[in-house]
């Protein structure tokens, strides 16, 4: 393919990528450097059904003049990134200066909203991703070994958790783990503890969210691994059997190495997916015990009456940076594999 035809072939998709990815991302980055204008405040007498009161209001005209002068807002540089709602640099400084024990330092850092969200997001990503992959692999192995007739229905049933929209799935589960719900009541009975509530303690909320995440995500690795299992060279398996390899050894030395490239791909996709965990937090009303970066963005944009665009933009950019950091090891691995297969570095 000549460069020219390659370019004309790619042009529409490049254009779409520019319009729908580069431009919005760029505008978010720009937005994150600005805050709203200073508001000109004035006192006024408010009267209504419940009497009169002195209340502060915005002087609309004076504020509008400011807006007209600079429609983008007030330039704040990296100010929003460094404030308490995000990286909280000043607060971190105070914490490191004034605390002595590691435990206290950690708990005070965890008290800052960004780090609280980051902590859960990372914990969720690093627990739900591998566990969902393991569960998916086990299901795939099991399905691969059941009689052909049963395969269709079993595959369909195993895919269901992935088909259910996360918000609906989490809401359903939320009602089930209620102390009146079937799971909540059963757990109380098993542990003989009428106080037990999965919704009340932070640890149990984290566990619930992660278990939900595994349940919801496992079908994806299952499908991929199941497809992978169909491509395992039967010759190799047979020769392994002739060499006297046990079932476990065959899995360990034939199946798993064969599926390894798929694992890299799955880890990549699942990590990106899990890192933006959001709906279950809303569905489980888990805000008190667990927040995530995506949830922080939503919270800034869906306040009762106010919207904090600058703050949401900064969190978005920080999220993107975190995702890049997270994916670097996987991307490096992929690149090394690619180089091994193509030592001269060309793709053809």
């Amino acid at each position, binding site marked *: 393919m000549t460069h020219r035809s390659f370019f004309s072939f790619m042009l529409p998709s490049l254009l779409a990528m520019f319009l729908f990815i580069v431009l919005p991302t760029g505008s978010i980055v720009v937005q994150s450097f600005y*805050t*709203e*204008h*200073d*508001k000109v*405040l004035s*006192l*006024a*007498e*408010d*009267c*209504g*059904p*419940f*009497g009169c*009161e*002195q*209340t*502060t*209001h*915005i002087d*609309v*005209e004076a504020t*509008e003049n400011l807006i007209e002068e600079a429609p983008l807002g*007030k330039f*704040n540089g990296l100010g*929003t990134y460094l*404030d*308490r*709602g995000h990286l909280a640099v000043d*607060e971190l400084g105070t914490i490191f200066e004034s605390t002595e024990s590691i435990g206290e330092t950690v*708990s005070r850092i965890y*008290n800052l*909203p960004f780090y609280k969200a980051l902590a859960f997001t990372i914990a969720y990503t690093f627990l739900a991703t591998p566990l969902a992959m393991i569960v998916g692999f086990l299901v795939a192995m099991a399905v691969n070994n059941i009689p052909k007739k049963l395969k269709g229905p079993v595959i369909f049933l195993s895919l269901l958790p992935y088909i259910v929209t996360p918000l609906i799935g989490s809401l359903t589960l939320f009602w089930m783990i*209620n*102390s*009146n719900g079937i799971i909540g009541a059963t757990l109380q009975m098993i542990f003989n503890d*009428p*106080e037990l*509530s999965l*919704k*009340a303690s*932070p640890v149990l909320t984290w566990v619930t969210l992660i278990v939900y995440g595994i349940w919801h995500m496992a079908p994806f690795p299952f499908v991929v691994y199941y497809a992978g299992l169909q491509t395992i060279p039967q010759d190799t398996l047979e020769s392994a059997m002739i060499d006297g390899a046990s079932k476990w050894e065959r899995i360990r030395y034939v199946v798993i190495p064969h599926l390894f490239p798929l694992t890299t791909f799955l880890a990549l996709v699942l990590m990106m997916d899990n890192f933006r965990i959001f709906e279950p937090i809303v569905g*489980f*009303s888990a*805000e*008190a*015990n667990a927040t995530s970066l995506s949830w922080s963005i939503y*919270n800034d944009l*869906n*306040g*009762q*009456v*106010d*919207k*904090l665009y*600058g*703050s949401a933009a900064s969190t978005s950019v920080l999220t993107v940076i975190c995702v890049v950091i997270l994916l670097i090891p996987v991307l490096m691995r992929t690149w090394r594999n690619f180089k091994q297969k193509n030592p001269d570095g060309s793709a053809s």
Partner: protein
Amino acid sequence: MTRLCALATVCLLPLIFVSNIAAAECGIESGSVRVLSNDIDSLGVVLNEARHCASDTVNVRTNRTTEHKSIQVSALTIDPAIYSVAMVSTNTLPPLLSAGLVRPLDEYVEKYGQNLESDQLIKINGKTVAIAFMANSQHLFMRGDILSDLGISPPRTYQEVLDAARAIREAGIMQYPLAAAYEAGWYLGNEFVNNYLSLGGQFFEPGSAEPTINNSEGVQVLELMKEMTEYMPPEYLTLTADDLKKLYLDGKVAIINQWGSMVNSHLDPNGAAPEISRTTLLAPAPTLGGHDIPAAALWWDGFTIAKNVSDEDAEASFRAMMYGMRSSVANEHPNAATWLIKGYEAPESARGVLDTINSGGRPYPMNPFMGLMHAALGSELTDYMQGQESAEQALADVEAAYRTSARSSGFLD
């Protein structure tokens, strides 16, 4: 076929007739009335009446959505605005005022507002910016049967609420007799606002956006809220007002501080639990710490007219809304809301809200940065509620979180 048509005409005739009469009563010649509203039944009552003003020359369109808050500012900013009327309440008017999207209504009040009571007018510096037609607040809903079995008189202070809760638990009737809408986020912040107002607390320094909640009143409020949770179901941080209703009508809890606007579903004799509805007592929100202000913020609901619409549409809109809030509408739907409309004869079910107002409840603060304070309260108080930090630390966190968002909204330097 002809007979069918004749029948249809005969049947439809009164309908056409009625709507024509209504349109004539509205007295609007022409114009377009476009309403953005929250999706609450009581607002629907007013809007359904206002729709009768539609005729060949008058167009009435309503959009009832719980997402009204998130679209109102953008929808009214464009010129001409998408909506000519925004149904607003205490906390949704300030964003419109701050953006200068509201039209002064004095001219229309003078021309068409003969039936308005003076306290229905929301005035800022003497200029009418909105018209209120219903009031709302939280107040006590209690199980009369349980209280009278134990010989307890209905509590009036939070101390008495706690005593009653202890008595109910000790009598083995319920392990968790109390519940409140403490869901982390808006609801939790709201309960703090209720209690803090009742102690006479100020959220901000007068004339500025500087927060002033980290004080002994704030600590007292938090300590009370914490003490209450001992008698609440363990998942109290996930309970909304709707969950409260379910728990109460399920017979799981005995005393709740619930929204007056939800009174109908709690007292409905044909509802989910008639035996509980029958015995329910209503009382003003309890007082706190020896003060006599009920611990529930007062709210109003009403309407305002967009600045960016033609004078014709604005006038038509005002008249249609006046038609929607006639005294006959209020008296035909006495239980739908605690109406502020002239000539409204309040039924028993409105007592809770009216008593809370009359015993000196304080209005929810109507300034442009209260929303940010409310949000900060909602997200920063959870650590204290779960016993992970001190009340002082929680309040300091609230102030810090509020300062951060107030700074990025341009209210603080």
